[in-house]
């Protein structure tokens, strides 16, 4: 089977999970019962098969361009989610992860396969840099989710009228600590990704810094997270301000990712002289 067929099966399974979570969120029933978790595991298996097929088909690590970028992003998010869920059992993560995984794989299914190639994609830096970056993005996405959950729940608790999130979310404390931990992990990966990015840039273009938009946004995100982590560690920051800063940081991360997947293919094309 080709990677695309596997991806289509992945989409179907992720759709089951996403639908389940959304319906249960509205009816305020338990989010992650056996069904959605099983569907996700099945989807994840096909997803893994699809990526490995795709790697062979493309001849380079499938992380570049809209189609491969979104597919790999979804895979990493699900991977990081599963790892987190096994440890913490925070079901509310599914609220963001399932629809995100579904949405990204949906895009991947309908995006055209990129017609790019060239020496730059054969570089050993691509798998290393991309893996680190995507693991970072996924962790920071979870932190972003916990931040949103924190803010929604805080709003409910402050207004003294329990609404949807009051019944679905974990405690504020849990949102805060899990958000903090995810930021710490994500920041580690992001830092390594930026360093390998510099090295790759130097190896391929002879310059560490090319003033590309994605470099600026990655650096912005990195600075925001440095401030956030410093404030958390030194001043015992937490709660609302940490959540807001985490959301700001993730906005920069999301921009970096989108820039990468939508425009970088073009940039790469230009750099290797393909029209």
């Amino acid at each position, binding site marked *: 089977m080709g990677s695309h067929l596997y991806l289509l099966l992945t989409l179907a399974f992720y759709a089951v999970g996403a639908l389940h979570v959304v319906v249960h969120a509205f009816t*305020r*029933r338990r989010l992650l019962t056996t069904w959605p978790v099983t569907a996700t595991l099945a989807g994840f298996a096909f997803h893994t098969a699809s990526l490995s097929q795709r790697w062979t088909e493309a001849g380079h690590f499938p992380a570049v361009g809209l189609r491969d970028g979104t597919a790999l992003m979804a895979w990493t998010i699900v991977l990081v989610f599963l790892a987190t869920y096994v440890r913490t059992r925070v079901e509310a993560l599914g609220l963001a992860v399932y629809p995100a995984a579904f949405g990204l794989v949906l895009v991947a299914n309908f995006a055209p396969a990129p017609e790019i190639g060239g020496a730059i994609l054969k570089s050993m830096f691509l798998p290393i840099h991309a893996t680190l970056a995507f693991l970072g993005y996924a962790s920071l996405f979870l932190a972003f989710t916990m931040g949103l959950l924190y803010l929604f*729940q805080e709003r409910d*608790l*402050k207004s*003294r*009228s*329990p609404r949807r999130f*009051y*019944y679905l979310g*974990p*405690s*504020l*404390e*849990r949102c805060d600590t899990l958000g903090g931990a995810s930021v710490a992990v994500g920041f580690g990966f992001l830092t390594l990704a930026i360093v390998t990015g510099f090295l790759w840039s130097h190896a391929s273009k002879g310059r560490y810094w090319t003033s590309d938009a994605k470099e600026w946004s990655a650096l912005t995100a990195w600075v925001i997270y440095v401030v956030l982590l410093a404030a958390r560690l030194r*001043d*015992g*920051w*937490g*709660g*609302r*301000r940490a959540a807001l800063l985490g959301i700001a940081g993730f906005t920069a991360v999301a921009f970096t990712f989108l820039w990468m997947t939508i425009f970088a293919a073009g940039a790469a094309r230009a750099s290797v002289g393909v029209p």
Partner: protein
Amino acid sequence: MIVVVGLSHKTSTLELREALAFDKDRLAEALLRMRQDAGANEAMILSTCNRVELYAQAEDGGTERVARFLAGYHGRRVEDLEAAVYRLGGAEAVRHAFRVAASLDSMVLGEPQILGQVKDAYQAAEKSGTLGGSLNALRNRSLAAAKRARSETGIGHNAVSVSYVAVELARKIFGQLRDKNVLLVGTGKMSALAARHLVQNGARAAVVGVRTMDRAHELAAALGGRAVPFASLREELATADIVISGTGAPGVVITREDVEAARARGGRGKRPLFLIDIAVPRDIQASVAEVQGVFLYDLDDLKSVADANLRERRKEAAAAEAIVEREVREFLDWQRSLDVVPLLVDLRKRAEDIRKAEIDKARPRLGPLSAEQEAALEAASSAIVNKLLHAPTVQIKELARNGHSLEQVGFIRKLLGL
């Protein structure tokens, strides 16, 4: 037939229920008297503040006799209790028993105590020797159904009493309550109750004496905490995570400045502070709610959360009712199938007797047989009997399940010459 006779919060006043309640210490004697006076085969009495119900296994007319016993035991005339006392028999009684155990008939939907009370009632009956096969089966099936309803639906989720709501909110904010500091201002009953729940979950308590220190010392001792004088309220605020204020003071006891100062001083400006004001008039200035990281709930707020939670439970009730209804059906099917068990036993015995007799009669004429041939003869004759009986057995069971049994069991007996 299983019968249930009784009164509940739905049909009677608390006063009447109190008058008709059964004393726990005299329950054993009451059970024996009930069995005798009401002519019941089995008896069980469930007496709580929200219901007084008598369960029995009795012949026809049992409901009336049980009702007379209930009135007579308390020196009343049954006619005077007509409006309050319901009499249920058969399927209705079974359904009621299941719904009661599942807390679907409770005043506070889904409240957990009833399950324990029902268990205790059956246990008391068991000890007194008034529990037999029917009520015991009812016990097993109804308690299992209740547990299923509770674990598979949300009828027991979300607190619906004010003090539990306070605890649940504290959990929602802090997650773990271990080592959280609870500050009680005033020693009212409700604050003591909420504080006890918090302490049970690992929180530490400090009690501020408002007018006198006596009560504060007493309550602090009960909660395993400290008693502190009113003068140090502001200092204590700096280290508190949860404050429960319920003084009888006419004015504000904790102002916005107090809270802001405490949060600045505590060096813990980022940790949340949960303030519960259960005093009327209120103890805590309302604008405290605007302070960053502070959650302020007064009595009305807690009640509205409780109401919202109860609405959530009501939504779950339909699912719980469905589970209970399925279990009730299964129980009734099983019960009806019991009606035909003697018939099936007789039928099988009769057939087996005939088979044995005929084999014994023919056996001498067959001469010596090998062990193999003996076995074949047994197997062939048994197979004939089994095959002939298979269809009638299935049909009789089916008949029983559809609830036509009693009159038809007699007809079948006659038909088969049993």
